[in-house]
C-alpha cells in the first residue's frame, strides 16, 4: 500500500502540472471558488462592518488520480472570513488532504474523508460550504467487499473542528463500522427477484476523556465511550419503495440535552409509490435525544457526528426559504409529511399542449410527547417519552402547493402557495415575535424566451403574516405578527451562453413600524466562460437564518459589493 501512496503524494506535490498531462503519469483535476465581499455601514438594516471592512473566503481543490490511486487536497483562505461564517476561521492553509487506494475488494483512505451511514442518523461527515459546516474525519477508513452485494466499512478518526492557517481537529475520537448487504446481489435465488432488498447495520462510538460533572447537588460520572447503533432496510418493487431506519444511542450527557443520561432513540420511515404522471411520498421522523457530537460540551454546528434530516421540503423561493426556515430541533421532535405529484397529461383539456405539473405537500413537526421527571431522576434523566405521537408544542406546519405549465416554446409559468405555522420559540429566527407565526406566501414565476439565447425569468412573491392583539396607545388592536408583510421581485435576464444580469428587491412593506419598511435591493451581473464563472453583485442583504436540510446558521445583515469566481479544470 505505502509503496503506492508515498511516491504518488510526492508526485502530486513536486511535479509541475504540465508534466502530468501525459497519460502514464496520471491526471490532475481541480476547482477554485473565491468569494470577496466589502461591507458598508447601514444603520437602517443593522449591517455590520468588520474591522477589515472586507471578507474573503477561497477554496481550491487539487485531485491527482492514477489508476487505482488518488490523492488530493483543499487549500482554504479566510482573510478574514465572510460574515456569517464561523468567525474563528482564520488564515490560509490546507484544510483537507487525503490519499486513497481502491483495488478489487478493498478501498483504503488515509487523511481526511467524508462518510455517511444510511440516512446519516448516527454518522454523517460532510461539507456544506454555504453554511460553513465541515466535519470531515481525519484518520483511516477501509471499505471491504468480501462477497458480491456485501460491503463493510470501518473507520477511525478525529473530526475537523476549526481552521487557523490549517486544520484543527477535535479531541474526541470517532470509531465506526457499517455493514450493508444487497440480497439480490448476494444470493443467487434473489438475483432475478422483482423485489430488491438492501439491509444494513452500523455502530459508531465516540471516545472523549472525562470523569465527573456536578449537576444541582449531584456528582455524576461521565461516560467516556458513547456508542450508537442503527439498523436499516430498503425495499423496492416496481413503482413502490420503502426505506426505514432505527437508531439508538446510550447515555450521552452533553450540552444539547442538559447533561442528562437518557438514552437516545430515532426512527425514520419513508414510503413512496410512483407511476406515470403520479407520485406519492409519505414520511415519518421521530428523534429523541439523538444529537451526537465528538465533543460533549459543544453545540450548534460544532463537531456533529450525525445528521438529523429535515421533514419539510427545502424551499428555494426567497420569501419561503429565508424568513421562516425550518431548523431541526435536535433535542427531539416528531414529524410526518405527505407529498403528491401529478402531471396532467399533455394535449388534454386541462393539461394543455405540454402538460401541467401539480405538487402538494403537507409536513409538520412537533415536540415529543413526554413527561418530565422530578427529583434526582429529573436531574439525571430529564424526562420519559410516553409515545411517538406529537407533543403539545407545534414546531412547524408547512403546507405548500404549486402548479406549473409550459404554455408555448417561449413561455412557461408557475404559481406556488405556501402556508407556514412557524414556532419562533423553537427556531428563534426573530426577536420581534415570540410564538406561532402564521404566514401565507404567494409566488408567480414566469420565464419568457425573448429571442434565441435571450430569456427573462421573473418572480413576484408576497408574504402575509397573521395578526395578534397588542396594546397600542392604550387600546388593544390587531397588529401584524413579527415584521409583517413582505414582497419580493426578482428579474433575471440571461444572454446565453455568456452573460446574465439579475435584480432582486425584498421589501418589508407591511412592517408594523413604518421606519423599518425597508427595501433590500440587490443586483448581480455575471459572465460564464466555459468552466469559469464570475459574478459581481451589489446591494443589501437582510439579517436572517440561512438553512440547508434543516441545518441553519444566522447570517447578519450586510451592505456592499460581492464578487464570486468559480472555475474548474
Amino acid at each position, binding site marked *: 500500500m505505502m509503496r503506492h501512496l508515498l511516491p504518488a503524494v510526492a508526485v502530486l506535490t513536486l511535479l509541475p502540472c504540465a508534466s502530468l498531462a501525459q497519460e502514464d503519469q496520471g491526471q490532475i483535476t481541480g476547482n477554485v471558488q473565491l468569494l470577496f465581499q466589502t461591507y458598508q455601514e447601514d444603520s437602517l438594516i443593522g449591517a455590520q462592518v468588520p474591522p477589515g471592512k472586507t471578507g474573503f473566503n477561497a477554496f481550491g481543490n487539487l485531485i491527482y488520480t492514477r489508476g487505482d490511486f488518488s490523492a488530493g487536497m483543499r487549500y482554504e483562505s479566510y482573510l478574514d472570513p465572510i460574515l456569517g461564517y464561523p468567525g474563528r476561521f482564520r488564515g490560509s492553509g490546507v484544510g483537507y488532504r487525503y490519499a486513497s487506494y481502491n483495488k478489487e475488494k478493498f478501498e483504503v483512505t488515509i487523511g481526511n474523508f467524508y462518510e455517511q451511514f444510511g440516512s446519516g442518523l448516527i454518522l454523517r461527515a460532510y461539507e456544506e460550504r454555504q453554511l460553513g459546516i465541515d466535519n470531515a474525519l481525519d484518520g483511516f477508513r477501509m471499505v*471491504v467487499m*468480501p462477497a458480491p452485494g456485501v460491503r*463493510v466499512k*470501518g473507520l477511525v478518526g478525529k473530526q475537523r473542528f476549526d481552521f487557523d492557517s490549517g486544520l484543527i481537529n477535535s479531541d474526541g475520537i470517532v*470509531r465506526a*463500522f457499517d455493514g450493508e448487504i444487497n440480497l439480490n446481489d448476494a444470493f443467487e435465488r434473489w438475483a432475478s427477484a422483482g423485489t430488491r432488498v438492501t439491509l444494513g447495520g452500523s*455502530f459508531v*462510538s465516540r*471516545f472523549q476523556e472525562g*470523569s*465527573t*460533572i*456536578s449537576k*444541582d*447537588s*449531584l*456528582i*455524576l*460520572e*461521565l*461516560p*467516556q*465511550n*458513547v*456508542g450508537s*447503533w442503527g439498523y436499516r432496510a430498503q425495499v423496492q418493487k416496481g413503482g413502490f419503495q420503502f426505506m426505514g431506519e432505527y437508531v439508538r444511542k*446510550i*447515555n450521552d*450527557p452533553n450540552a444539547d440535552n442538559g447533561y442528562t*443520561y437518557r438514552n437516545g432513540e430515532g426512527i425514520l420511515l419513508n414510503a413512496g409509490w410512483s407511476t406515470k404522471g403520479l407520485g406519492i411520498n409519505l414520511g415519518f421522523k421521530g428523534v429523541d435525544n439523538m444529537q451526537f457530537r465528538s465533543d460533549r460540551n459543544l453545540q450548534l454546528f460544532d463537531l456533529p457526528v450525525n445528521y438529523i434530516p429535515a421533514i419539510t421540503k427545502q424551499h428555494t423561493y426567497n420569501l419561503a426559504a429565508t424568513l421562516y426556515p425550518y431548523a431541526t430541533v435536535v433535542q427531539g421532535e416528531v414529524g410526518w409529511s405527505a407529498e403528491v405529484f401529478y402531471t396532467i397529461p399533455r394535449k388534454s383539456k386541462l393539461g394543455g399542449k405540454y402538460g401541467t405539473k401539480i405538487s402538494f405537500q403537507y409536513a409538520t413537526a412537533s415536540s415529543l410527547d413526554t413527561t418530565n421527571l422530578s427529583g*434526582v431522576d429529573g436531574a*439525571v434523566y430529564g424526562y420519559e417519552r410516553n409515545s411517538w405521537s406529537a407533543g403539545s408544542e407545534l414546531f412547524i406546519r408547512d403546507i405548500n402547493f404549486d402548479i406549473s405549465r409550459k404554455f408555448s416554446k417561449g413561455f412557461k409559468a408557475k404559481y406556488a402557495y405556501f402556508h407556514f405555522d412557524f414556532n419562533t420559540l423553537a427556531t428563534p429566527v426573530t426577536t420581534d415575535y415570540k410564538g406561532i407565526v402564521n404566514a401565507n406566501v404567494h409566488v408567480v414565476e414566469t420565464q419568457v424566451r425573448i429571442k434565441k439565447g435571450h430569456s427573462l425569468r421573473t418572480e413576484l412573491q408576497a408574504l402575509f403574516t397573521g395578526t395578534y392583539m397588542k396594546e397600542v396607545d392604550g387600546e388593544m388592536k390587531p397588529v401584524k405578527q413579527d415584521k409583517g408583510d413582505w414582497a419580493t421581485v426578482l428579474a433575471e435576464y440571461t444572454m446565453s451562453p455568456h452573460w446574465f444580469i439579475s435584480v432582486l428587491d425584498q421589501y418589508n412593506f407591511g412592517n408594523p413600524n413604518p421606519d423599518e419598511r425597508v427595501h433590500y435591493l440587490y443586483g448581480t451581473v455575471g459572465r460564464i466562460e466555459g468552466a469559469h464563472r464570475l459574478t459581481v453583485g451589489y446591494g443589501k442583504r437582510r439579517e436572517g437564518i440561512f438553512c440547508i436540510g434543516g441545518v441553519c446558521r444566522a447570517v447578519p445583515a450586510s451592505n456592499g459589493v460581492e464578487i464570486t469566481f468559480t472555475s474548474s479544470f
Partner: protein
Amino acid sequence: MRISFFTFGLLGLLSFCITGCDVIDDPVIPLTIGYRGEAPAPSFEAMTAGPQHVLLEDFTAHQCGNCPPAGALAEQLSDTHDGRLHVLAVHAGSLAAVSDAPFDTDWTNAEANAYWSQLAFQVNPIGRVNRRGGPTEIVSPNNWSALVDNELGLTPAAHIQGAAIADPNVSDDVHFHVHTTFSEAITGEVRLALLLSESHLIAAQLDYGNDPEVITDFEHNHMLRGSLSGEDGLVIATDPTSGTTVQMDYTMVWPSEWAQENSHILAVLTNAQGEVLNCLDLPWSP
C-alpha cells in the same frame, strides 16, 4: 482461510461494540455537593500562610515482586515528612490482575486504572510526585526522595484546610469540608478531587526480596480505594486570583465495604495542567 479472516474481523467488530459503550446504570456518585448535616458547616478563616504538601503516588501491584521495596521507601518518606507527604498506593497494570489464590482479590478500581492510563510509560514500580510536569510524568523510586524534598521547599499556590466528620445523628452519613485559599493567581480551571485510601489491608503480595516470595499476610497501606469526586475531581474555581477563597461542603453515605477507621480522605487540588497545587489528608473529627 477466508472464513477465518472474516470471522476474526467479526470478532474484532463485536469486541469493539462492547468496549465502545460505557453504559452507566447509575451515574450518581454517592457524594453530593448538597451538604445535609444538621449542624451548620464549619467556617474557616482565610489561610494566608501554610506549608506545601506533597502527593506521592506509588504505582504498585500485588503480583509485582519488585514493588514492596518501593512501598517501604514511600512509607519511610511519609514518616520522615509526617503530615506533609501523603502516599497513595495505586494498584494498576497487568501485575495487578487477578489470578489464582492467593492473588484472587481485585485491588484495582476505575480511578487507579485511569491514573495508570495517564502515565507516559507504564511499569511497576513507578511514581508521580505532585504530578509535576503533568499527569504523564513518571518518577523512578530512586528519585522520589529528592523530588519530594524539592516540592516541600516550594511556596504553595493555594492552602487547604478541612475536616471529615461522621454525622452523629444519621448513620453512615459523612460530611467533608474543604476550604481553599489561593495565595497566587491561577490560570484556568482548578479542580478538587477527594481520594479515598485505606490502610491495614491484609492480603497477598509477591516480594522477590522475601523467602518465600509470596507473602500471604502482607499489610497493604495507603491503598487507593476510589474517589468521591471522580479521579480528576470537580472544578471549584476558574482563573482564581490571589486571596480567593472557596469552601466546598459535601455529604456522602459511607460505603460499608470501606473501614472508616482505616481510611484517609485526601483532598487534592490540581491546576489546568493536572499538576498538584496542594493536598491535604482531611483530619477526621469526632
